């Protein structure tokens, strides 16, 4: 008889489990078939919108890793979208158009920035941590504005998508969509392995009770920092994808309110669940889209909605699906 752990969710009744799995399966199926719909209907906009959804979902997955599983509320995560994007943009402008160079650089620089910011910020906790990550994100935003050569405040147009020799042509929108889809699934899979590994258990334990973790012998700072770097690197990849998608990169992408958007996506979907970030991103972007069609002042509705979510909705949408056990 193996004494393997039951993750807390396994005690949920089977019916709920099936309902939840069905929802996710359906969502994935729809996402997979979306290009078919686009081809048939001729509606290119939907694919553009959902490519963006997929890319930002990768960012949300990375934030969920540190926030949902690690308990580190970072209000500066959009910085990595920007760093990844600018890596692609700057290299493109300097004549290096190969994705084989651009994307690893995007990931590496993001990881490096996460290492520095994390090393400085992770000594603090709670509100301090939120404010400090916010400050560092704003710093990099100002740095980007100061980069006159690369567009400064106006941003930088990227004339060529990242080249991958003959392996894959990112100019083909459908191909690009599926690439993003595959990368998203890969990210989710990566996170799923991570959170149940030894490393992941340390991260989750630290979120649950850091004092206890230290008392049993874990140097928690080290683990949190590595987790922070992984999340930054993954988000840097999302940034590279985003730059390719919009063919444009500007400091506005790193403004701290964009970090707020990422937090919303993660919370809406349900903190600390594997597919929550995707659900949250879909929900948020669709909501944004819907509101902007209905009114000229979408934030008049979005703002209070967020407030209500903060006050009443614990566990986000996934919580509504009763995936997590409520105590």
């Amino acid at each position, binding site marked *: 008889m193996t004494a393997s752990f039951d993750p807390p969710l396994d005690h949920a009744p089977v019916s709920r489990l099936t309902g939840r799995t069905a929802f996710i399966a359906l969502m994935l199926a729809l996402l997979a078939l979306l290009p078919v719909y686009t081809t048939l209907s001729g509606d290119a906009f939907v694919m553009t919108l959902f490519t963006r959804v997929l890319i930002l979902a990768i960012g949300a997955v990375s934030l969920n890793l540190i926030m949902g599983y690690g308990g580190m509320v970072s209000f500066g995560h959009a910085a990595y979208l920007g760093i990844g994007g600018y890596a692609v943009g700057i290299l493109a402008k300097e004549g290096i158009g190969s994705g084989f160079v651009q994307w690893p650089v995007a990931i590496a620089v993001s990881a490096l920035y996460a290492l520095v910011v994390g090393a400085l910020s992770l000594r*603090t906790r709670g509100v*301090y941590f939120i404010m400090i990550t916010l*400050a560092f994100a704003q710093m990099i935003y100002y740095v980007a504005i100061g980069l006159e*050569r690369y567009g400064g405040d106006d941003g930088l147009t990227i004339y060529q998508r990242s080249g991958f020799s003959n392996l894959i042509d990112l100019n083909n929108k459908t191909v690009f969509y599926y690439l993003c889809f595959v990368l998203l699934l890969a990210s989710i899979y990566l996170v799923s392995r991570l959170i149940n590994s030894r490393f992941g258990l340390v991260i989750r334990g630290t979120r649950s009770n850091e004092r206890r973790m230290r008392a049993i012998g874990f140097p928690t700072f080290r683990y949190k920092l590595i987790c922070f770097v992984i999340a930054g690197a993954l988000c840097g990849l999302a940034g590279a994808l985003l730059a390719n998608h919009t063919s444009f990169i500007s400091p506005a992408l790193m403004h*701290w*309110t964009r970090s707020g958007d990422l937090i919303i996506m993660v919370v809406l979907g349900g903190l600390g669940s594997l597919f929550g970030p995707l659900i949250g991103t879909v929900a948020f972007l669709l909501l944004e889209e819907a509101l902007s069609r209905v009114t000229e*002042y979408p934030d008049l509705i979005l703002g209070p909605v967020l*407030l209500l*979510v903060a006050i009443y909705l614990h566990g986000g949408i996934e919580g509504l699906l009763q995936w997590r056990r409520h105590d």
Partner: protein
Amino acid sequence: MLYFIEQCLNGVQLGMLLFLLAAGLTLVFGIMDLVNLAHGSLYMLGAYFAATFAIVTGSFVAALVLAVVASLLAGMVLEVIAIRRLYRRSHLDHVLGTFGLLLFFNELVRLIWGPAGMTLPLPPQMLSAVEIIPGIYYPMYRLVIILATLAVAALLYVVVMRTRIGMLIRAGAANREMVAALGVNINLLYTLVFGLGAALAGFAGVMQAPILTVQIGMGENILILAFVVIIIGGIGSIRGAFVASLIVGLIDTLGRAFLPDMLHLALSTNAAATLGPALSSMSIYMLMAAVLIFRPEGLFPAASR
């Protein structure tokens, strides 16, 4: 030299404005344990109120007074309707909820006043420059800002340290359950504290309006600076906020004024031109990073919490 003194004074002026914002933030955090991202919105509303009242009344002073009162009321109403429901929640929920408020207020201002922003004209008596030291002139209005904000800071000190209300505020910061248990109307206290923070923010918004800006989103950049101030000064500490505000104000102003030139001395023209503006805006974050390394609890951490 003249330029240096002028920049120093500008730094003090920025520091004082920051102090007003940071004081409100740190009070609310110290007493209600609430992170308020919408604090900058109250700063913005103060400026917009004043611009509107100035048009109506034609007087800067009247606009100032009315705007501060309006900010106080707005803060108190906001606390009752929305903020108080967030108290028991996690800091993440605070961040999320007040972020929603921030978005809401930006949009509301756009709806009511339009996207273009407004102006608040300088009071005519203050258009001149004052000779503060023989040979050195400084705009009078900027001097007024410094003095007025110092006066408010002193008033704040007196209220917090020497009055009953102030004592309750300090007690509430140290131990809110105890204060509630003593029969003090905690709800009212919180509303007043939040209102006070709003009034301070609104006052700062009005004062800076003639020389800086009245536009949507103006609260956001300065809010982050206020956060940096609190981190450097220590959360919950008004004295820390005061010292840190001056430091941050001076470093940011002097950095922007002198760093590009200093860089030109050290680096090639191209590099200096590229990096100059970027690096000079980074100076206070570098300071913050240094504080985090050597004294993570801040320069003057509050005794309790």
